[in-house]
């Protein structure tokens, strides 16, 4: 029985990765992405795949504090890393101010791009606590949304920056 070429290597790579505060030790395929690891191995399906090319931003997570499109990170590259996903944004069962603002301002419709936006916005506000509208737009320029036209997303992020949503 023939087999497919990559699997002939029968190769798995051990990694240790901390995701939302929990440490996981995993054996991953060398070609496996961080996105696949999160969704398929860890069951963290909040992170979405919209394109698989790093173009849409739906799979954005924070890796060692910086936003990455997890479809472009190979799982072995995440060895030793600290990863934050949308499932890790709430604290003690309380949604983060950005999560609350997205709900209150109607900054989501279908919700598929929302996890990626929340991760990019979380990073943006950590780096620039009081951004201008233009800085907000730049901060989320790597995330596509097809439902909202971005207006309410920008308003929600600015509201959090102004401390209007705690």
């Amino acid at each position: 029985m023939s087999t497919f070429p990559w699997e002939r290597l029968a190769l798995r790579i051990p990694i240790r990765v901390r995701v939302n505060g929990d440490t996981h030790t995993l054996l991953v395929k060398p070609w496996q992405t961080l996105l696949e690891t999160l969704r398929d191995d860890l069951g963290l399906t909040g992170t979405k795949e919209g394109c698989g090319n790093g173009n849409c931003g739906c799979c954005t997570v924070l890796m060692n504090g910086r936003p990455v499109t997890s479809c472009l990170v190979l799982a072995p590259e995440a060895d030793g890393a600290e990863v934050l996903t949308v499932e890790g944004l709430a604290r003690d069962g309380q949604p983060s101010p950005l999560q609350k603002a997205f709900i209150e301002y109607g900054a989501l419709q279908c919700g598929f791009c929302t996890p990626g936006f929340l991760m990019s916005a979380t990073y943006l506000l950590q780096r620039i606590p009081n951004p201008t509208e233009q800085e907000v737009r730049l901060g989320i320029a790597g995330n596509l949304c097809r439902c909202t036209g971005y207006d309410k997303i920008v308003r929600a992020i600015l509201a959090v920056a102004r401390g209007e949503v705690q």
Partner: protein
Amino acid sequence: MATKATFRYIGKPVPKMDALERVTGAARYAADLSLPGMLYGKVLRSPHPHAYIRRIDPSRALAVEGVKAVVTAADLPPLEEARAAFGGELMIELAHLRQLVIAHEKALFEGHPVAAVAATSPEAAEAALDLIAVDYEPLPVVENALEAMKPDAPLLHPDLYTKTLGEKPTKPSNIGMILEVGFGDLEKAWAEADVVVEQAFETQMVHQGYLEPQACVAWVDSQGQIQVWTSTQGTFNTQRMLSALLKVPLHKITVIPAEIGGAFGGKIYVMLEPLAILLARKAGRPVKMVMDRAEVFRATGPSSPAYITVKAGARRDGRLTGLYAKVIMDAGAFPGAPIDRGAWCIFAPYKAPAMKVEAYDVVTNKPRVQPYRAPGGPQVMFATESVMDMLAERLGMDPVEFRLLNAADEGDQNVTGYKYGRIGVKAVLEAVKRHPHWNTPLEGKNRGRGLAMGCWMGALLTSSSQVMVNVDGTVTIVTGQVDLTGTRTTMVQMVADMLQLPIEQVSIRVGDTSSTPYTDLSAGSRTTLTQSVALAKACQSVLEQMKERAAEALSKPDRRLTAADIEYAEGRFWVKGDPEQAISWRQVAILSRTRGGGPVVGTGTVTRLQPANQFAAQVCDVEVDPETGKVKILRYTCFQDVGRVINPIQVEGQMQGGAVQGIGWGLFEYYAWDKGKIRNPTFLDYRMPTALDLPMLDTAIVEVPAPDGPLGVRGVGEAPITPGPAALANAIYRAVGVRITSLPMTPEAVFWAIRAKTAVPQPAPADGT
């Protein structure tokens, strides 16, 4: 029911009930689902836009370790009713849908499914695809509708005869249908006109661009019972299509709606579902299939590219004498371009003594189009609203005044012959005229302001819901109505007000096709309108039943009460004329369990309603960089008559989201073709608007109640995509004096248009060098 004054929730910005799941990552989309023993399915797609398929040999693929099943067109049951068709928003013949799902003798577009594989891992499935041997015999490619209409064009379908009101053609062609509608004497109209403008326009194929690729999980149990979890706008429509394709009766198919990551009309047809079911049946295990983005671009259902010529005449006083259009829409591989809806929309905001539209539905070697938000609307409104500005300019009239003078109103006639009920064209234009955006002077070089109108007729179809009173007095709405972007919330708002109960006491469950009554798809701006009627009927029935129960409970041996003796308000029933003799809603609900009578359930359904036509307008300010052709949007305001607002946040969200999709059509988006092959099947090369491309988007909501339905709701979603391209074209014209008639108006297109206008003519080269 409560009157407007007493509504507590209708018209209020109630946050989306399911938003928390969506910001925490808990919402379940189809690709998030896994089942025990699940296999992964992949599709082998034709690399040729047009080719005979001579032979398919899957034997080497089946030998790959982990591969459990391969299916081809031969696995579909034979077709008996060749001419059966799906109407409504589906608009496709069964025979065509069957060939669209998987190619039979011919591949008709690049990406057309040819075979599908299920294996224990995605890698094994992909490896197996490479080993399926297919003998293709490539055929000449029909690249666009104009080529397709030429008498000597290669034929896509040897059995396609043009549908027309005239004689049946003797020869097959690539024209699926010719539609001619209109009234009045156009020759007279041109003779009476002081000014006539005639202009040709072109629009490109554009994709809905939903962020969630198509996905489903299918399972066939040992009894042959099919279950499929899928991202669809209509579970019952999916069930009907599957039933017809697979020859399985409806009760053997359960379609379970997953959350949908955007659709905009593009998630109506079955695509992966029948293949996943065939694979699951063959392999005896559940099968999950998820498209990648390139598959979504190549092989789902984008919008029709169009060639449109509009001719319009007006008297010196500004009154239109006649309107004419020739519309050619490209349906892709099978007939069914939205020419009927395009024809309805093209002159919809206006009245004129003579109007005529000739429209052609043409097949080419492209993916078969599907509805995309106001299907046909953005194309035709780009043409009409550009011409209206050209006419206004020639007449020396203000664009708003010119449109107001010719605005259609109740009793006027659409080009299709339909007579309008109450509509808001004038109200929308008056709102533009009053708005600060229209009245603030725009200063600065290379800047211009544009206005355009938009519209949608409003779809109806059948909608149903059940309203169930639980035995503790809380209420659950049970519906099969798929929630695309917030109808769970608006439906709960409506029921809370209709039953006069606190909103916390009302929940909603979007159920599968085996546990909810039939309801048509969520599309065409029909959901909130038709559900407002269905829910009102269901609530009426619930209130009657509850009153009967209350009457029984409040009856005394000396006085038997009936429902007619009972009054109800705010969770309390009492005897007419004796408010002290009362019983609470909750108590009546408890009695339904303890005293017999059974549960209280109201079912509401609606099929026939007067259409609720939507009209919209958009105003935009742009600045054009003449050096690069880049168009920067400075300010954008969306106006729309929505009939009655149920939830202002959601209404604004629809208006803004629709407007930005229209901006995408206007400035950025198109399929780039190379002999029928798509050159830009990624979000990097197919450029959708980003946050950086846009300003804040103002909204101005107009409420002219729809002629039918208890609340006057019109629906919101479709109309706001239609004005954008012309509003931008009109603004660009005012900014730099060039009239662009082909979409999208990319920097390159604008640059060359400016260059063509300003270039000093060069002397011709002397000897061809």
